[in-house]
């Protein structure tokens, strides 16, 4: 008779404990806060459903344009934009690598003295904190419209990306190899050349190819603010409501991104 209440106290149903936010009170507070925010946020979004409904027809035309793209009627514009984008991508990546290698070495704590380190880290922070589009706006205002401003934008953005990752890679280097080379009486340049460079080279090649890929994607965007490239062509096509030409441009962008991505991953595997 004493066993019956004992058996009842065992729960017959199992409730799964939460994986995250295990504290019950905080869980409720955070969930409630999220809900309140959502209600407030959705209330401030004013949607003109009439306009959206009218737009559906245009949306359908865009889908049709994407499915049956028109490469021919604006081919000259598309070709010019594409050439600008591709040349801009190559030159800005090369220039960006050339500048970011010394900055990356300077931003590595194990190779550079403190003042150089701080200066290089400062350059990296400035380059990383602003978006490409904002830099492009400023540079277009300074250098005028066209791919030269785009080239500068992409090169500047490349510096922040590549130097930071290169510096981290150098800091992760195997110390014993550096010490071994230094023990032979090598100068600083020889240490960089014979101990650090062979260790970081595969990674540097991989990162450069990855940045090439990113720069092409970004070159399609900064054209919208006047920095040349295929983005300008796309912007014009959409302004003219030529959705079939816009579809063609988008398909070309997707195809090139795919080709660059696959070939760069192939080269990276081959290098590493």
């Amino acid at each position, binding site marked *: 008779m004493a066993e019956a209440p004992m058996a009842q106290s065992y729960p017959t149903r199992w409730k*799964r404990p939460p994986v995250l936010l295990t504290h019950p009170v905080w869980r409720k507070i955070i969930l409630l806060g999220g809900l309140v925010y959502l209600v407030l946020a959705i209330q401030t979004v004013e949607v003109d459903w009439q306009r959206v409904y009218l737009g559906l027809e245009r949306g359908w035309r865009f889908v049709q344009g994407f499915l049956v793209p028109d490469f021919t009627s604006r081919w000259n514009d598309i070709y010019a934009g594409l050439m600008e984008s591709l040349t801009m991508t190559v030159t800005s990546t090369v220039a960006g690598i050339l500048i970011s290698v010394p900055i990356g070495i300077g931003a590595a704590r194990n190779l550079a003295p403190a003042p150089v380190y701080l200066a290089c880290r400062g350059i990296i922070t400035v380059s990383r904190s602003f978006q490409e589009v904002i830099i492009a706006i400023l540079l277009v205002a300074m250098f005028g419209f066209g791919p030269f401003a785009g080239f500068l934008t992409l090169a500047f953005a490349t510096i922040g990306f590549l130097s930071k990752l290169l510096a981290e890679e150098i800091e992760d280097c195997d110390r014993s190899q550096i010490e071994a080379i230094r023990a032979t009486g090598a100068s600083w340049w020889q240490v960089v050349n014979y101990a650090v460079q062979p260790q970081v080279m595969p990674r540097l090649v991989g990162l450069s190819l990855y940045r090439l890929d990113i720069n092409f994607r970004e070159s399609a965007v900064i054209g919208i603010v006047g920095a040349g490239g295929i983005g300008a062509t796309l912007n014009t096509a959409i302004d003219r409501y030529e959705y079939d030409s816009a579809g063609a441009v988008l398909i070309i962008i997707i195809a090139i991104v795919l080709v660059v991505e696959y070939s760069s991953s192939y080269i990276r595997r081959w290098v590493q």
Partner: protein
Amino acid sequence: MNTQVPGAQSSWQFRTPKQTLLRWLGWFWLVALTVFCWQVMNENTIWAFVIDAPDQAADIGDRMFPPAWSYINNLWEPLWDTINIATLGTLLGILIAVPVAFLAATNTTPSTRFVRPLALFIIVASRSINSLIWALLLVAIIGPGLLAGIVAIGLRSIGFIAKLLYEAIEEIDDKQVEAVRATGASGAQVIDYAVVPQILPAFWGISVFRWDINIRESTILGLVGAGGLGIQLNASLSTLAWNQVAMIFIVILGTVVLSEWVSAKVREAVL
């Protein structure tokens, strides 16, 4: 003892002559390609503008300083809109990305031959097109405003979240899945009890990371009419009110730094 092995080189070389030649050729092609691209790119560059640039930069810098501090009162509402675009857009992206990720992961997809390529195509298409381009399209289609921005951010986020999430799903521990399946669980129950708990930390980490990126991107979406701070930026740029532009840049920078801090804290707590 001055004997030399026949055929051996007098000095040590790091690479064989053939390797040296190939590397030399590779570098030559790279330089040639760069020079060629430089020539093509700068065919239409007006160098007078480029030479003039330092003066222009000094002029713009002069006009930017001091920033129009009082202009910040016009920026609170666009700032709220910007944060909403990023947050609601991320939520929209998550809603679509989660099923796509499960369809794309080799261990949860119903069919590797038909469904998986389709899911991978969705991921690639979403990833290749920047959110500013999505916004450009959507403003033309559904009209300017917050909705276009939210949908643009959502569409761009699908590829990012789905790609990282399906990679996380493919890396889960199979033993747990087997154990749950051995209890007689259905397919949905296996996903609920064996897969989801394993990927939940990764899922929150990815989502917050994307939210952080989306805050950055939503600050400029207004340039093409999709709401937020970018609209004010566009207005100030077109009236050449550089001191207002400077103030907007300061607000954008502050928002980005803050969102990065929040995202780092959340990821630290989750992972």
